[in-house]
């Protein structure tokens, strides 16, 4: 990891599972934020992102390949990716990049996500998203639309500075 990357916080889900992982009191001292998620659900479903505890004012355009066809669509939720549970003990990867998160403009973000599966269907998604709110980002939440994140799922929040 480059010297400008700093791991702010990380969390690994324990045996009880959890429906949501929320990072709060995010310091404003970095230039950008990036979140790296390794997630598996108790059942297949969507992972949704909230910003400052809000699930409103999101919009995104998504490119998706599923192993058979490619698609592009838009939506107005904080959806990041669909987690598959087709293959046992296999986790999906999601990276969310949020530039200029502490600024006073609307917050754009990008998502690079794959739902790992040793099966015909697996998802690879690239998302360009916007949270139409000018508040500085101080909290990020990641929630299973239904069920829980299972044990060993991890979420790590990094702060990135544009200089060392």
């Amino acid at each position, binding site marked *: 990891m480059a010297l400008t990357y700093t791991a702010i916080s990380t969390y690994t889900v324990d045996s009880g599972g959890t*429906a949501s992982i929320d*990072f709060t009191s995010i310091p404003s001292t970095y230039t950008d934020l990036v979140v790296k998620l390794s997630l598996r659900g108790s059942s297949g479903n969507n992972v949704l992102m909230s910003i400052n505890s809000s699930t409103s004012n999101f919009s995104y355009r998504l490119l998706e390949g599923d192993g058979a066809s490619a698609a592009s669509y838009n*939506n*107005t939720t904080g959806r990041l990716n669909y987690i598959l549970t087709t293959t046992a003990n296999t986790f999906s990867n999601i990276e969310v990049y949020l530039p200029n998160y502490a600024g006073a403009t609307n917050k754009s973000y990008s998502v690079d996500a794959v739902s790992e599966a040793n099966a015909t269907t697996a998802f690879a998604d690239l998302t360009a998203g916007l949270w139409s709110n000018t508040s500085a980002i101080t909290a990020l939440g990641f929630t299973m*639309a*239904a069920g829980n994140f299972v044990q060993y799922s991890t979420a790590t929040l990094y702060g990135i500075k544009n200089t060392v």
Partner: protein
Amino acid sequence: MPTKIIVDCSTGVTTEVELTAEEIAQREADAAAFAEIKAAEEAAAQAKAAAKASAEAKLVALGLTADEIAAL
């Protein structure tokens, strides 16, 4: 009751709390909203695919070859 993990980045303290009724309702509403939009998109995609297949069948009936149809 489902729980959430709160990671306080200023202190490093991690807390597990139960979701409130409002948070559960919001989660269900978000999931339902996404499912509704996704279903509409899939229906539209299926309708478009059906229309394309129908149009191609009509072109074949007019005597066009597969290569000619693909060239359109």
